[in-house]
């Protein structure tokens, strides 16, 4: 559900917070408000807001507050300390008692102190303000803005089987509307010739499972993140007691899928310098154990070679999407505005943002050699990095490249994200 949060500013005796789909009003003292605000920032939009808050507030130390989690199908509301919250539903109004409640047909949720007016222009999309109260208004079906049907197409449910042409829209029945495309008619489409996907490490299409083709102790066919864009590893002087990779004629299973299903603009792998382990896997020169097979790296000759960088990890977003870090990623409403994206050195991730909290080019998760950095590209609402030491979100200075460690939390717009490096890179 889309909701508009309007603060009632008044004398500003409480604090009103909105982070993503979490809304919180604290009427407690500074310590209580600070704890709640920090919690909101950390929790992100998808946490079990009510459950966690109920546990946290059971001691009563968080003072009077009201928390709201905006869900897809209603509001989860938690009231503590007798905050006078009123829910308006289609069937009337209801003053909420202390405790948690789920409201599914609510049209607005109000905490209005006195008769101070509220100004609908002061909507709070993200952040904290001092406020006496608030009004949280549910937008009706705003997430799916179908207009009403064109005036000549009444909502008549005509069974398709009635062959008799309907008299009203005389031009309609026979032809397909111009805006539509038949998926059964392949004429006129320049579709590529379909070729089968390669079979994993097998000679040609094998009818039976052929498991033990490669010796078990040498997973040289790389079930691991080694990208296969280069046909063969760079020849080098280091010992390589491994069976050579498959000849180019039989690409390994992790070879790129034909464009049909691949990313629309596939990331161009990045070349970096690294070390090759005794079994031929390309590694970050700083690691002590091979990220793929775990063999100790001290057996190598420590000669740096240049090769395609394996994925640096994955950025897991709070909405459940994830982005593998093969190239740098630029997030924004219109990431194509970024020259790195336009020129193919970074991949754009378009964020759909009804709340206008995301800038056109907002933030970049940047691969710097073997490291991952975050950069704010001068966004209006900022890019944040969670500080474990200070237990707070730090806003990044624009264009400052800050390294991320595995497990780092970042936040922009209504999203939080966690950077995970490959489990296989743990040394």
């Amino acid at each position, binding site marked *: 559900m889309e909701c508009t949060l309007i603060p009632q500013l008044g004398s500003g005796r409480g604090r009103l917070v909105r982070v993503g789909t979490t809304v919180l009003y604290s009427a407690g003292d500074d310590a209580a408000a600070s704890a709640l605000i920090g919690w909101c920032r950390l929790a992100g939009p998808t*946490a079990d807001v009510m459950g966690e808050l109920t546990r946290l507030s059971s001691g009563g130390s968080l003072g009077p507050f009201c928390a709201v989690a905006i869900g897809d199908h209603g509001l989860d509301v938690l009231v503590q300390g007798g905050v006078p919250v009123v829910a308006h539903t289609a069937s009337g109004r209801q003053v909420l008692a202390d405790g948690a409640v789920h409201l599914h047909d609510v049209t607005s949720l109000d905490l209005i102190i006195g008769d101070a007016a509220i100004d609908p222009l002061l909507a709070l999309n993200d952040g904290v303000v001092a406020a006496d109260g608030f009004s949280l208004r549910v937008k009706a079906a705003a997430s799916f803005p179908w207009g009403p049907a064109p005036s000549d*197409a009444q909502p008549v449910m005509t069974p398709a089987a009635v062959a008799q042409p309907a008299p009203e829209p005389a031009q309609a029945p026979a032809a397909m509307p111009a805006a539509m495309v038949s998926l059964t008619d392949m004429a006129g489409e320049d579709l590529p010739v379909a070729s089968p996907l390669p079979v994993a490490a097998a000679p040609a299409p094998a009818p039976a499972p052929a498991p033990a083709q490669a010796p078990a102790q040498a997973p040289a066919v790389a079930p691991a993140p080694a990208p296969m864009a280069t046909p063969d590893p760079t020849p080098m002087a280091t010992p390589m007691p491994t069976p050579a990779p498959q000849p180019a004629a039989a690409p390994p299973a*992790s070879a790129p899928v034909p464009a049909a299903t691949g990313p629309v603009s596939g990331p161009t792998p990045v070349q970096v310098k690294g070390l090759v382990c005794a079994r031929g896997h390309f590694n970050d020169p700083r690691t002590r154990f091979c990220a793929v097979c775990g063999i100790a790296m001290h057996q190598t000759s420590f000669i740096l070679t240049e090769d395609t960088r394996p994925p640096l990890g994955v950025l897991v977003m709070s909405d459940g999407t994830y982005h593998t870090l093969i190239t740098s990623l630029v997030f924004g409403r219109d990431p194509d505005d970024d020259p790195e994206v336009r020129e193919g050195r970074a991949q*754009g991730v378009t964020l759909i943002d009804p709340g206008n909290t995301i800038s056109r080019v907002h933030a970049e998760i940047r691969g710097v050699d073997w490291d991952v950095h975050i950069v704010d590209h001068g966004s209006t609402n900022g890019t944040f990095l969670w500080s474990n030491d200070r237990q707070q979100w730090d806003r990044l200075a624009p264009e400052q490249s800050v390294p991320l460690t595995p497990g780092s939390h970042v936040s922009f717009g209504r999203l939080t994200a966690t950077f995970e490096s490959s489990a296989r890179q743990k040394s």
Partner: protein
Amino acid sequence: MSAEPHATASDEITQLGDYTIVGPLNDGGHGRFFRATPPARLGLDDDVVIKVVAGTSEAGFRRFTRELKLFARVNSPHLVTLYDAGQHEDHFFYSMEYCAGGTLESPTEPLTKAAKLRAVADASRAVHALHESGIAHRDLRPGNILLRSGGSACLGDLGLAQLGSGSVTSMAPMASIGFVDPKLIMGDSASRASDIYSLGAILHWVLTGQTVHAGLDGSDPMMAVRSVLRNPARVQRTLLTPAEADLIDTCIADDITARPATALDVVTLIESLETD
């Protein structure tokens, strides 16, 4: 695993192209689904399903229809039949066959074990046909296996991850996370092997009611993805016959060369279970 939102009845949609909307259907994970009456030009007796996804630009629509056509031209009786694609305001939509039996995730009536195995075998046949045409499905999950009224099953379309989603690199909608090969999340390309992993994970789910990631909690997508990355998949052997457990184990093997080579091999293996 039904954490996906359901379409609400509040949308005032009556017409999409020359299709007449009858009403919303449960959401399948990536878009919104409506039951609709097809136009007479198609000569269909039955209603169809219309799926709606967000999308605008002309280029986006061309890519969208192109990818749908690549799917539609794959010749398999176990792939859902697609009819038309269209554009409406800032959404794309397309129409497909309506399967009255629901999905493997939420069938309209309880399925026997044999029926569940048959559905996964049918879906595997469809996956094989896609692979033979150079397409990896990448979004195999019980909610995407559709049950026809006659008892056969067919595989639903590719997910939004592939269709018209512009530059999004990868997506793991919650409904899929228990079924995706973690190697895909870490950057491997989709392949026969990654789809075969999903088939094994689906088999595990239909036979045990659990995903191969024990204790996977769908309430927090971020935690779910992290948990899948950190905890290797494991077969719940106590809930399965040894043959079933072995079959699933080989499908989800960490070494992709140890997995069945093709989805058709998975069919053979499933059918050998049935006759046991």
